[in-house]
C-alpha cells in the first residue's frame, strides 16, 4: 500500500494510440465477403432470423451479397434494422444470429453474419442516399426523448410514415450508447455520427440536443405540442458498489471513462493508471479494461464476483479482454478500496467460490490488488426522476409498458433500456421500430389532436 498514485495521459506515442483505437475488426474485402456469403446455406426457416431481435432476413441479405446485389442486401438489412451498420459492429452475434447458425453444428464455424452485415451496410453508406422514401406528410408530430438506438430507430420509422419527429437528448450529440458508451475501436471513424447522418436523410426529423428531460422539457409539456411522446431514455445512472473508499481520487465510473475516450479524437489526453482494477463483468467492464490497456496501462485486472459463465460479457468479449492482456479474476467480491493521501492504492477483495445454489460463498480469505486507478462497472440503472409527476408508472425500476410499448399515460410510449427486457442495442432498435409502427397505427386511426 506504499505505491505512488500514478495516473497519466499520453503513456503511448500518438501513432500507437491511433493504431490501438482504430477499427478492431477491419471489414471484409469484397472477395472475402463473397467467399463467406457463399458458405451460407440459405436455410429455410432459418434459426439466425429468429435469433435476431430485429428479425433481419439474414439468409436473403447474405444471398444478395453472394449474387453481387449489395444495394438489395443493404435494403434487406435496413428495412428491419435501420441501425444495421452499428449493430453489425456491436452486436454480441455469438449469442444471437451467429450462435444459432446451423454451421455451428456442422463445422463449428458459423457464417460471419455480423461482418457480412457490415459489408452490405458499408456499401450503402459509401454509396450514399436512403433506400427508403418518406411517405406524404401526415401532419402529425411525435416527440422522442433520448437519441440512442431505440429513439433513432423510432424516429426513422415514424419519419418514413410521414410524421414529423422531434428528437430530444440531454447530451450534446445524438447516438446514446453508440456515441458515448461503446469502446472506440468498435465504432471507429466516427461511425455513430455518420450513421445518424445517413438515418436523418429520410427527412422530417429534427434533433434537439442539450435538452434534458425534467429540466428543459417534461412529458406533459411535450404531450401538449405533440400527437405522441416516446420515452427512450436508456440508463442515465450507474450503480454504486457502496464501498468504503469509492470517493478516493482515481476511482472512476467505467461509463465516464468510456465516454471520455469517445469524446477524445486522439486519446492522448485521456489519463489512465499504470495498474488498473476494473470491478464488474459486463461489456462495459470489458470495454473499459481493454481500452485502459490500449491507453498504455501496464496491468489491468478485471474482477468479477461470480464465474466466467455468469458474466454478462460474452465468451468472445472475455477472450477479447484476455488477448488484450487483461487479467480476469472470478469469484471475488470487493470489500473496500484502499488509499493513501486521498488517492487510491488498491482494492481489497474477499475470495469466494460457487456455492451449492450457484451463488458465491465467501470463505473469508482476502487479497488486495494494487491499483492507482479503479474503474467501476457494476451496472447501469434507469433514472426515473425526470418522470416525476408525469403519471408514467414504473415496474421493477423501469417504465411499465404493455406489449405495444404504451405506458400508463395515453399517448406516451416507451422502449429500449428504460423498459424491462434485455439491454442490447439491437433489442432497443427493435423496440423503437415497433413503437413507431404502433404509434402510426394508433394515430392514423384517430383524428388529429386538437392543439390547445
Amino acid at each position, binding site marked *: 500500500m506504499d505505491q505512488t498514485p500514478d495516473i497519466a495521459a499520453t503513456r503511448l506515442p500518438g501513432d500507437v494510440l491511433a493504431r490501438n483505437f482504430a477499427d478492431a475488426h477491419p471489414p471484409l474485402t469484397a472477395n472475402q465477403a463473397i467467399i463467406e456469403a457463399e458458405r451460407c446455406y440459405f*436455410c429455410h426457416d432459418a*434459426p439466425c432470423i429468429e435469433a435476431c431481435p430485429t428479425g433481419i432476413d439474414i439468409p436473403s441479405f447474405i444471398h444478395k451479397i453472394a449474387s453481387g446485389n449489395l444495394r438489395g442486401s443493404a435494403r434487406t438489412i435496413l428495412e428491419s434494422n435501420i441501425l444495421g451498420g452499428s449493430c453489425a459492429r456491436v452486436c454480441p452475434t455469438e449469442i444471437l444470429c451467429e450462435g444459432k447458425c446451423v*454451421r455451428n453444428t456442422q463445422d463449428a464455424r458459423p457464417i460471419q453474419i455480423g461482418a457480412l452485415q457490415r459489408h452490405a451496410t458499408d456499401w450503402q453508406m459509401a454509396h450514399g442516399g436512403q433506400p427508403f422514401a418518406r411517405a406524404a406528410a401526415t401532419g402529425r408530430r411525435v416527440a422522442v426523448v433520448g437519441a440512442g438506438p431505440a429513439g433513432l430507430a423510432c424516429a426513422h420509422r415514424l419519419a418514413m410514415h410521414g410524421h414529423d419527429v422531434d428528437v430530444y437528448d440531454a447530451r450534446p450529440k445524438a447516438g446514446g450508447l453508440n456515441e458515448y458508451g461503446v469502446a472506440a475501436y468498435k465504432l471507429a471513424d466516427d461511425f455513430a455520427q455518420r450513421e445518424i447522418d445517413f438515418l436523418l436523410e429520410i427527412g422530417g426529423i429534427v434533433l434537439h440536443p442539450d435538452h434534458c428531460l425534467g429540466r428543459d422539457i417534461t412529458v406533459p409539456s411535450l404531450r401538449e405540442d405533440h400527437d405522441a411522446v416516446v420515452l427512450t431514455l436508456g440508463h442515465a445512472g450507474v450503480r454504486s458498489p457502496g464501498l468504503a473508499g469509492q470517493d478516493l481520487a482515481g476511482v472512476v465510473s467505467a461509463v465516464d471513462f468510456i465516454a471520455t475516450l469517445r469524446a477524445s479524437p486522439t486519446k492522448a489526453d485521456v489519463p489512465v493508471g499504470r495498474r488498473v482494477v476494473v470491478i464488474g463483468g459486463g461489456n462495459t467492464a470489458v470495454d473499459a479494461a481493454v481500452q485502459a490497456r490500449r491507453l498504455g496501462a501496464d496491468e489491468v485486472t478485471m474482477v468479477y464476483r461470480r464465474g466466467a459463465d455468469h458474466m454478462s460479457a460474452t465468451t468472445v468479449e472475455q477472450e477479447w479482454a484476455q488477448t488484450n492482456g487483461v487479467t480476469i479474476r472470478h469469484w471475488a467480491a470487493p470489500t473496500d478500496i484502499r488509499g493513501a493521501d486521498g488517492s487510491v492504492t488498491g482494492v481489497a477483495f474477499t475470495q469466494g467460490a460457487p456455492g451449492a445454489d450457484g451463488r458465491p460463498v465467501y470463505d473469508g480469505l482476502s487479497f488486495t490488488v494494487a491499483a492507482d486507478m479503479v474503474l467501476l462497472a457494476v451496472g447501469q440503472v434507469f433514472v426515473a426522476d425526470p418522470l416525476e409527476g408525469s403519471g408514467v408508472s414504473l415496474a421493477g425500476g423501469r417504465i411499465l409498458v404493455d406489449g405495444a410499448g404504451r405506458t400508463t399515460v395515453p399517448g406516451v410510449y416507451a422502449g429500449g433500456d428504460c423498459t424491462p427486457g434485455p439491454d442490447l442495442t439491437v433489442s432497443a432498435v427493435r423496440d423503437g421500430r415497433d413503437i413507431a409502427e404502433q404509434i402510426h397505427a394508433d394515430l392514423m386511426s384517430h383524428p388529429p389532436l386538437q392543439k390547445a
Partner: protein
Amino acid sequence: MADLRTTLAGIRSPNPFWLASAPPTDKEYNVRRAFEAGWGGVVWKTLGEDPPVVNVSSRYGAVNYNGTRMAGLNNIELISDRPLATNLAEIRSVKRDYPDRAVVVSLMVPCQEESWKAILPLVEDTGADGIELNFGCPHGMSERNMGSAVGQVPEYVEMVTRWCKQYTRMPVIVKLTPNITNILVPARAARRGGADAVSLINTIQSIVGVDLDAMAPMPVVGGLGTHGGYCGPAVKPIALRMLGDVARDPEMAGLPISGIGGISSWRDAAEFLAMGATGLQVCTAAMHYGFKIVEDMIDGLSNWMDEKGYASLDALRGQALPRYVHWNQLNLKFKTIARIDQDACIKCGLCHIACEDTSHQAIAKIRAGDERRYEVIDEECVGCNLCAHVCPVDDCITMTPQPVDGMQTWTEHPNNPMRGQLTNAG
C-alpha cells in the same frame, strides 16, 4: 501398386493421363515440363498447313460457380499458330528425350487428299507415336470447312480417316465432336474408315456468358464476342454419356477409346475408365492448377485401385458398362426412400423446402418450441433423391432401398400402350 501402364491403339504410356491437344501442348517447353511432372503422354496441339493461323487476343471465358473458379471453360483459340517446321522439330526433340511417353500429334488440314498425304510423312518422320484427327474444333476452323465441319459429316470422317490410314503407318485416333445429335454416327464412320481408336469429347459449342457492361458475349475481343468450345468439369456428364454410348455399342466393340471431358481428379479418371475408356486426356484441370496435379491423379487412382482390387487398367476398364442400360430396362418396382439421420441433421430445412416447394411434400417440418425436426413421410416419398442432394451434410440423408417384389420394366408395364413392341431404342 496397381499397374497403370496403358496401351491405346498400340501407343504405350506409363500411365493413362495424357494432356489433350490444347495450349498446354503447344510447345516443346510446355511438353517437357509436363513430362517432368509425370504426364504419361501428350497430344500435341493441332498442326495445320503453313502459313499458320492467327489467334486473337482474349481467348478464354469461364463459368465460375459459387466460388469455384472455372467450373467450365470456353476458348476461342484456333490450332497452333506456329510454323509447321517449328512444331515438327520440337516434336522430334521431345520424343527423342522421352521415348517412354506417348507423343501423339493432332492434325487438321483441308479436307482434300493431297493435304493429308503431304503432312503425314512429315509427322511420321518426327518419331511421333500416332496422330489424332481434329474433327472437333467448333469455332474458327469449322467456318473454313475443317474441324467440326468435318466431324459433323460422317462421310467426311470416314473418308479422311481412310486417307490417313492409307498414307501413314502411325496409329490413327479420330477425335469426335459432341456437336452432333448421335455420337454413334461419326464414331461408326471413323471405324469404317479404319480408325485405330476414337477420342471423345471435343469441346461443345458455347457462349460462356454475356458481359453485361460491354453487352457482348465473353470473351470480348475488341468489343465483340463469338461462340467457342466449352470444356472443364461442367462438361463431364455430357462426355461420360457419349463415352458410354460408344463403348457399349456392339458395332464399336474392341475399338479403344481415349476419354476426354472435364477429367479433374483420379475419381473422374476412374469413372471414365469404368465407362469404357482405355486412355484419358486432360486439359482444363492442368490449365487451372498447372501440371503438378497429375501426381494425385496417378497416386489417387493407384491407391483406389489397390483398395478395390483392380490390378491393372484392363481389369477396371468398362466395369460399369454392363449396368449402363436404356431407361426402359430399369425396374419400375424398385423403390428407395429417404432417411434423415437426426443426429447428423443441422436443421437447415433445405430438404423440407426443396421437397415442399418443388417435389412431393414428403418431408414434414416439425417445431416444438425452439426445436426443429424434419421427418420423411414415407407414403409420400417417391425416392427422387432431391433432398439427399440439397442436404449440405454428408451422409445425413441416405436413400434406403426397400424390399423389391420382382421385376417389371416399362416394356412389360400395363400402362405402356406399346407393350411388347418396344425395342431398346425406346
